[in-house]
């Protein structure tokens, strides 16, 4: 086969050029650290890298959301602790005031202290986060949620709270609306309240009662009527009978998923009521206690009843604060868990991105030296072969 001299020269130079461009490519991979430089290098890999990059970026955003939320929740937790302490002090003062030996002026001193506690509670309820937004204003974050006029406090915030996304499929409440923390505190046992009929002539009393089966509870006002000291009938608000039975002290009366205990001897015609629990506000509780203590005309029995009610409501407020605090704690835990799982996922995804995109230095360096050896060989062989010609020997 004839080897064309021009063809030999051209193909030798073509081969050297293609080796040089391979070396340039390997060199650029080594200097940029990327083996996936454009999508043409590995279209499927590039699609995967882009998707992983987006997911990593989203995951970092969720972590940032979580840490912003965490700082708000920590402030909220502290505010709730402060509010609990205020109510605890108020409870101590109420206990102190519930003493018939105290003079009216001594009770007024206690009332003054309670007024300071009320102001303190309003201050706590109007706490702001790091951005100056009110923690307990719901979504009306720029409105002062609790406005105090004299001893009465009004809620001006919203009842809904915004959400924060802490993981791809987890959105949690950013805070708690002040109405749920300070205003709508369930009275009684939280489901219903019990009361002794005003015209009772017997000595029987009724306990606070408990919920046996919440799903059977139908909220309504029920009346327990004793036709004689041992027989009773329960009727609903429309007068329809619910249940009836015989009574011996102390006896449990159960219906519609609840149970309450009557003790003592009722007279015929005595009534007791079981009504759905209403709500009371922590501020109202304090301000009515203040009003009570400032009233010198109350009998010691009235004083005892009213401070007793106040103490029960204070306990309810503290328990409500604790419940909210528990839910805040649960959210802090959720944020922490989401953040740590995000960190794990990010590590895995970053490793995948790196394996798809980043150059393997050992492999690339080996490849570079192989290509360089090939180019050197091509150059040297060309240099020696190109000089060979029969004409050199024809003298």
């Amino acid at each position, binding site marked *: 086969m004839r080897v064309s001299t021009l063809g030999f020269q051209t*193909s030798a130079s073509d081969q050297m050029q293609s080796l040089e461009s391979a070396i340039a490519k390997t060199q650029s991979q080594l200097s940029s650290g990327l083996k996936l430089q454009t999508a043409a290098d590995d279209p499927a890999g590039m699609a995967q890298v882009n998707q992983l990059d987006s997911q990593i970026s*989203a995951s970092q955003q969720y972590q940032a959301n979580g840490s912003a939320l965490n700082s708000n929740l920590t402030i909220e937790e502290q505010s709730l602790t402060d509010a609990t302490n205020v109510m605890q002090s108020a409870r101590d003062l109420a206990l102190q005031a519930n003493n018939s030996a105290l003079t009216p002026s001594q009770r007024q001193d206690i009332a003054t202290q309670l007024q300071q506690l009320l102001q303190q509670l309003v201050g706590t309820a109007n706490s702001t986060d790091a951005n100056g937004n009110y923690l307990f204003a719901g979504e009306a974050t720029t409105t002062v949620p609790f406005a105090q006029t004299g001893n009465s406090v009004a809620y001006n915030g919203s009842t809904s709270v915004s959400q924060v996304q802490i993981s791809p499929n987890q959105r949690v409440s950013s805070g708690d609306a002040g109405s749920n923390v300070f205003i709508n505190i369930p009275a009684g046992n939280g489901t219903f309240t019990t009361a002794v009929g005003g015209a009772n002539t017997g000595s029987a009393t009724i306990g606070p009662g408990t919920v046996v089966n919440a799903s059977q509870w139908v909220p309504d006002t029920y009346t327990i009527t004793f036709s004689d000291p041992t027989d009773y009938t329960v009727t609903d608000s429309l007068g329809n009978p619910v249940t009836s039975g015989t009574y011996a002290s102390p006896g449990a009366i159960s219906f519609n998923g609840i149970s309450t205990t009557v003790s003592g001897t009722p007279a015929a015609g005595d009534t007791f009521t079981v009504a759905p629990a209403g709500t009371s506000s922590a501020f109202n509780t304090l301000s009515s206690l203040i009003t009570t203590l400032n009233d010198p005309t109350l009998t010691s029995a009235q004083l005892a009843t009213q401070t007793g009610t106040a103490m029960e409501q204070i306990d309810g407020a503290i328990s409500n604060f604790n419940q909210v605090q528990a839910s805040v704690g649960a959210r802090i835990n959720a944020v922490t868990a989401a953040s740590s799982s995000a960190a794990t996922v990010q590590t895995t995804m970053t490793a995948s991105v790196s394996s798809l995109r980043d150059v393997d230095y050992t492999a690339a360096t080996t490849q570079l030296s192989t290509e360089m050896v090939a180019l050197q060989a091509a150059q040297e062989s060309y240099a020696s072969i190109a000089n060979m010609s029969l004409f050199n020997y024809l003298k």
Partner: protein
Amino acid sequence: MSDVLFTSVSGLLAFQKALSVTSNNVANVDTPGYSVESANFSPQVGVTTSVGSFGNGVDVSSVTRSYSELLAGQMRTSQSSYSGFNSFATTAASIDSVLSDSSTGMTATLQGFTNSLQTLANAPTLPASGTAVLSAAQTLAQSVQGYATQLSAADQNVEGQISSNVQEINSLASGIATLNSQISGTTTSGAPNALLDQRDQLINQLSQYVSVTTATQSDGTMQVFIGNGQALVNSGTAQTLSAIPNQYNPTQFDVGVTSSGATVDITGSITGGSLGGLLAVRSQVIEPTLNALGQISVGVASIINQQQASGLTQSGAQGQPMFAVGAVQVSGSSFNTGTAQISATRTNLSALTPDDYVLSNNGGTWQLYDQTAHQTVAMGGDGSAGNPFTAAGLSMVVSGAANSGDSFLVQPTATAAAGFNVLLTSPAQIASAAAVQTSATTTNTGSGTIAPATVTDPTDPNLLTATSLVFSSPTQYQINGAGPTFAYTPGAAITANGWTTSISGAPAAGDSFTVSSNAGNPGDNTNLFAMIDGLSANSLNGGTISLQGAANSLVSQVGSQTQQAQANAQAQQSVNTSATAAVNSTSGVNLDEEAANMVKFQQAYQACAQLIQASTTMFNTLITAIG
């Protein structure tokens, strides 16, 4: 004795000629397209005597070039394929490298925009977070616009190359025609080797620009066809190609050929070569990428703008559009004779496609043809303003009078990306909060609860007007306590004034629920989450792909087209290398071979000269003997 002298002289002359052929070969060792020539010797007819025939020396009967039409054809075919893939790959690679940049890539900027919405959702009243949203929107817009600019620049570059390719083809064609005229009629024995080599070389060059087939005629001229059999050169005449403006888009070139005064569009029959590659990369990479980019831009703008209108800003007003996109591009054909105008608007994001359509009037009936999917698309409506044509997520209104044969190119998304802009200037214009809120009246005695309302028609003038749903009985309600009575179904949608909500549970007679403006709750981020959810939902192509997914597949699509073209170009290059080597082994000049020939002819020449010497000696001997 005189025979010896005569015979030797014939040898001297023949070897002189042979050496001249050799020297011509050596001189042309570096001439591209030169085919090695050889002198063909033939013995001269001798004198026949009674003892036999005595030869009369030698003569060079012909000088022929070593050439194979078959090998040359193979070389040209592979050359056309290689140039085609190579010009495709070069343009595609430039687009690929722009799209692949991971920091400015669309997937990254889209995610950045979503992240900024998330940050704003953490504290919607924080102006710094709102500013960050606007700047992320700006970054997204710049990245989209940047791509649109790069793609247009690539297109302009391609248009420029198409017209310069057409000029090159014309000049090569006229060169071939001229050589045809010179070659025509010359006898085969006296074949003008240099002219044939020149013509072959021009055809080789032509094969770089477009695929070529040839046919040799009996008079030695060559017919040249390009692409799918379009005649370019016939004998001594060459057709003139021209880059003609597209009928719909004058800035885009098609390839036409002018014969007897009329210009015919032959773009469809151009294949192979750099011209074929350029036409292919334009229709397969540049235009689809621009359209797909436009589709994503329309997606972002329509989702965010819709949600902006459905939410409230910090000041309690419904939001204004955040993004602008380029409108649907409708271009009438330059051949249209009627006065019809088409105005098209996008109505349905999910039905919108990245395809281009031709709306043509066929004897009074309008037809919509999908140019990308190559199929006719059914349209609803009659094209009037009251009942517009609807198809492919578009609504089209025809005004004026069209003649049969008039047509319009409808590009739903082609210019959307170029016009993708941020319209909002202040963070206070971002509608973070839901437009309406729902509440149950506190004195309600039943257990009914009302769900949050969603906005279904942001344009309803009464959207923000407080509306109450009053239950006249546990099973019936009235809007605002008056007018018609509606039957209550727990959990069923209740729609009024542009919003939808639902009530569940058992409301009592006299209970009421209120839907009212959500103004005054600047901390609400419901609408931001609606935007975030909208951006990540599968909203394009009939709800099969998300914006992120579309942006990602755009990158990998161009990447795999580039990769494929590069791989094909590489494969065709090796085919071309071996075809060229085969041609060279037949037609190339090898200097060692020529050196050997030279020695051979030199020796023969010397031998002939020695014979003349011998003849002279013989003659002298005879003279001396006589004298």
